[in-house]
């Protein structure tokens, strides 16, 4: 186990280093490395209260910081090895806990030896004087590539530092409350478990000033370290004093994490979660109401799940609590003992948390690995799910981070909900409007009548014919090639639509059906254009009747667009069918076909004009009183625009027919 893991860690180290280098914060810590002989431990997680009493522990905790800081320390120390493992979020949290234990042990004791992931900890070796600092940072990398580097950094939790640095010696660390808060936010973004550990760390930093003699090593703890990585660790900065961070802020998270939820201010904790939910809500607002509600429920369910998990842990903790104390005493680990009473005295919540941590480690060691593993699985799932939800629509957590940064401006949940509702209302309105406009939208009606699909299919046929022609051209040379080129060009010339139709006089006398029949007679295919005729007749009928005068201005406009789009759609369909039938025709007569298609195209184009004109005429003559001039003009322009659009569709379709004619000619 050890060997394989160590390999992983080494590789992880490199990553960690790179990341740490990226961060500017490292500079701050450089001073630390030079001066500090103390062991840099990472995982302060839970002892906060207990730590308070003990000065020793405080030092360690303070020393724990972000990976970056650790990293710098490492650079200075030169021996620091960062070991990163990809571990599930959940595991990480537990690791934190273990790590904290280790810290306690080693707090006052300078650990010279490197801590290997395995149980064998150098912690036992209490060399206060030893200056060699070896930092092993076990960072847990989550596999999710989506997360941004920052997140990863936070996730990279330095598990153990065995360095000799003492916190006391640490140079002045300039860490503003802002930075700490940021880190804190990051931790929030991370898994719940990680969040917990992080907060605990922060608390520890703040509160811990008295180092406590930590028992040597917890063998079991070391193992756990491997499995679990402390998350919050990174966020901790050199500054021990974090004025801005208020207990209230951290309490909620602690509660959730430590299952102390019931005891502490439910409001505070809720607000935290509320914020969390809020971000998601904001995102949701853009999407829609339905998604919004689902998300909210989602978030709630998450809360419930986490609470349940924590409860489970608590039970275990309480059971093992007394046991642990006794055992700890027996063992070298006296820290736990000390910590527990101190926590009880100092702050109830923290005490519980610390005790719970110790109990968990105990559990893991002695009794039920199964329980933990299953619990871990659950937590892992929850953590992953949480991350997914958190990250949805918010790559890199930018939005959420921004939200957390503005602690003062945190809105109330109800406010957020209200805002979200307003947003969705607006969106619904716009959707409704969009629906109305699409009703008038030429393209969408055209698509509804499958004009686009037929155009696409026609395009396919046209391309295939072109390919066929090109293939034949490749196989020819000399005079054959020239003559074939000429043929193709002739066909092209035949297909010149001309600028205008000169048969206007005649056309007015015949009706559309007759004209189409005449025009397509020489195509020599069995195809009818009745659909087109029907539309045209419908339009005529509508505006010759008395009841048309009851139509609203808007309705006439809609009718115009509908008729145009429908007519165009059917025209394309007919062109497509014509092409298919021509292609399977046994005896092609290109000249006739070209002539017919030109006539057909011109007839259809003029019919488009006819439809547009009949509507425009009606609109401009019957609604003078109701609507202002500008509006009428705008509508007329729109109709004529769509008529042009329709004509261009028809002409495009005609051009697609040319290769089909050419194929027939060669």
């Amino acid at each position, binding site marked *: 186990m050890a060997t394989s893991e160590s390999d992983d860690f080494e590789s992880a180290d490199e990553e960690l280093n790179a990341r740490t280098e990226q961060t500017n914060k490292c500079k701050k810590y450089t001073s630390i490395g030079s001066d500090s002989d103390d062991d840099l431990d990472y995982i302060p997680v839970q002892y906060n209260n207990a730590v308070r009493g003990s000065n020793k522990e405080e030092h360690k905790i303070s020393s724990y910081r972000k990976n970056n800081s650790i990293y710098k320390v490492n650079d200075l120390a030169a021996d620091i090895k960062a070991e990163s493992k990809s571990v599930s979020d959940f595991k990480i949290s537990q690791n934190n806990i273990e790590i904290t234990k280790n810290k306690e042990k080693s707090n006052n004791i300078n650990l010279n030896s490197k801590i290997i992931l395995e149980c064998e900890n150098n912690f036992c070796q209490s060399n206060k004087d030893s200056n060699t600092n070896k930092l092993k940072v076990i960072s847990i990398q989550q596999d999710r590539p989506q997360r941004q580097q920052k997140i990863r950094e936070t996730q990279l939790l330095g598990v153990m530092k065995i360095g000799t640095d003492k916190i006391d010696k640490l140079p002045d660390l300039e860490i503003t409350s802002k930075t700490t808060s940021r880190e804190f936010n990051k931790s929030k973004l991370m898994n719940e478990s990680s969040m917990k550990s992080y907060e605990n760390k922060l608390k520890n930093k703040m509160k811990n000033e008295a180092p406590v003699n930590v028992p040597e090593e917890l063998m079991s703890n070391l193992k756990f370290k491997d499995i679990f990585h402390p998350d919050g660790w990174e966020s901790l900065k050199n500054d021990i004093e974090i004025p801005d961070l208020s207990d209230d802020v951290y309490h909620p998270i602690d509660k959730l994490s430590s299952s102390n939820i019931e005891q502490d201010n439910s409001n505070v904790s809720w607000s935290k979660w509320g914020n969390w939910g809020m971000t998601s809500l904001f995102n949701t607002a853009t999407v829609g109401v339905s998604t919004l509600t689902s998300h909210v429920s989602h978030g709630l369910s998450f809360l419930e799940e986490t609470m349940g998990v924590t409860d489970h842990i608590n039970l275990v903790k309480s059971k093992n609590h007394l046991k642990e104390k006794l055992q700890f005493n027996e063992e070298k680990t006296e820290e736990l003992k000390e910590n527990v009473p101190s926590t009880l005295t100092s702050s109830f919540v923290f005490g519980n948390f610390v005790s719970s941590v110790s109990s968990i480690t105990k559990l893991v060691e002695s009794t039920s690995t199964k329980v933990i593993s299953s619990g871990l699985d659950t937590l892992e799932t929850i953590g992953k799910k949480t991350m997914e939800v958190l990250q949805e629509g918010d790559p890199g957590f930018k939005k959420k981070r921004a939200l957390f940064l503005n602690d003062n401006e945190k809105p109330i949940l109800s406010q957020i909900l209200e805002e979200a509702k307003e947003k969705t209302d607006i969106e619904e309105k716009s959707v409704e409007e969009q629906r109305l406009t699409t009703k008038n939208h030429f393209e969408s009606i055209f698509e509804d009548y499958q004009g686009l699909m037929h155009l696409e299919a026609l395009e*396919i046929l046209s391309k295939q014919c072109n390919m066929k022609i090109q293939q034949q051209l490749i196989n020819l040379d000399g005079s054959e090639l020239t003559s074939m080129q000429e043929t193709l060009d002739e066909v092209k010339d035949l297909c010149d639509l001309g600028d205008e139709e000169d048969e206007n006089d005649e056309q007015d006398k015949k009706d559309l059906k007759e004209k189409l029949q005449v025009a397509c007679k020489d195509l020599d295919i069995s195809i009818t254009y009745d659909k087109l005729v029907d539309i045209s007749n419908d339009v005529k009928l509508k505006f010759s009747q008395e009841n048309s005068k009851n139509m609203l201005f808007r309705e006439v406009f809609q009718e115009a667009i509908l008729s145009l789009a429908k007519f165009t759609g059917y025209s394309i369909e007919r062109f497509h069918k014509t092409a298919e039938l021509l292609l399977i025709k046994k005896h092609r007569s290109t000249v006739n076909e070209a002539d017919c298609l030109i006539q057909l195209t011109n007839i259809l184009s003029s019919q488009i004009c006819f439809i547009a004109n009949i509507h425009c005429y009606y609109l401009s003559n019957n609604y003078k009183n109701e609507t202002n001039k500008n509006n009428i003009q705008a509508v007329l322009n729109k109709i004529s625009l769509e008529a042009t659009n329709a004509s261009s569709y028809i002409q495009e379709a005609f051009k697609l027919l040319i290769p089909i004619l050419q194929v027939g000619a060669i």
Partner: protein
Amino acid sequence: MSAGPYNYSYIFKYIIIGDMGVGKSCLLHQFTEKKFMADCPHTIGVEFGTRIIEVAGQKIKLQIWDTAGQERFRAVTRSYYRGAAGALMVYDITRRSTYNHLSSWLTDTRNLTNPSTVIFLIGNKSDLEGQRDVTYEEAKKFAEENGLMFVEASAKTGDNVEEAFLETAKKIYQSIQDGRLDLNAAESGVQHNPSQPGRTNLQGVLSVQQGGKDSCSC
């Protein structure tokens, strides 16, 4: 008609193939209109049908190309296979010859579509049990041997028609989720975010982004 071009996330291109008279157009009509078309004229070239369905919460527009079964149109209809995400291969359980031609249809499909195209074998006219000429078992065996999905359906009663179309869509959607079907591939049959509504180009599947739905799913 449809409520608008943007109320779906994907467009899948289907193609229905099979011998003349096996009921391809009737299956399509049953699926899109939920009615049985008793007197169905011969299809010229290709006809279209569309319907919006929902798979895994995603609205998907099925763009179904119903090809002519007549032999004389084979050259033309072969042009339409390209970029189909799903192919419904239909035979008539009362006419053995239509079943015997399946391998040729299958060859065409395999040659003219891409590997990720879902091929669904449909034995139509299952309501005519008395005139059955092809047993369910042998068709099932044929489907399994060739890696096809299979069902016996009736365009007349509507039996299993819906299922065939929906199962195909589910399989395609699954392929997208699994990454087996690359939306960006030229002939995937699936399109995402078409600039123009409903235009499938050479791909059988279109994915339509509506109002930032994909970019922000929270």
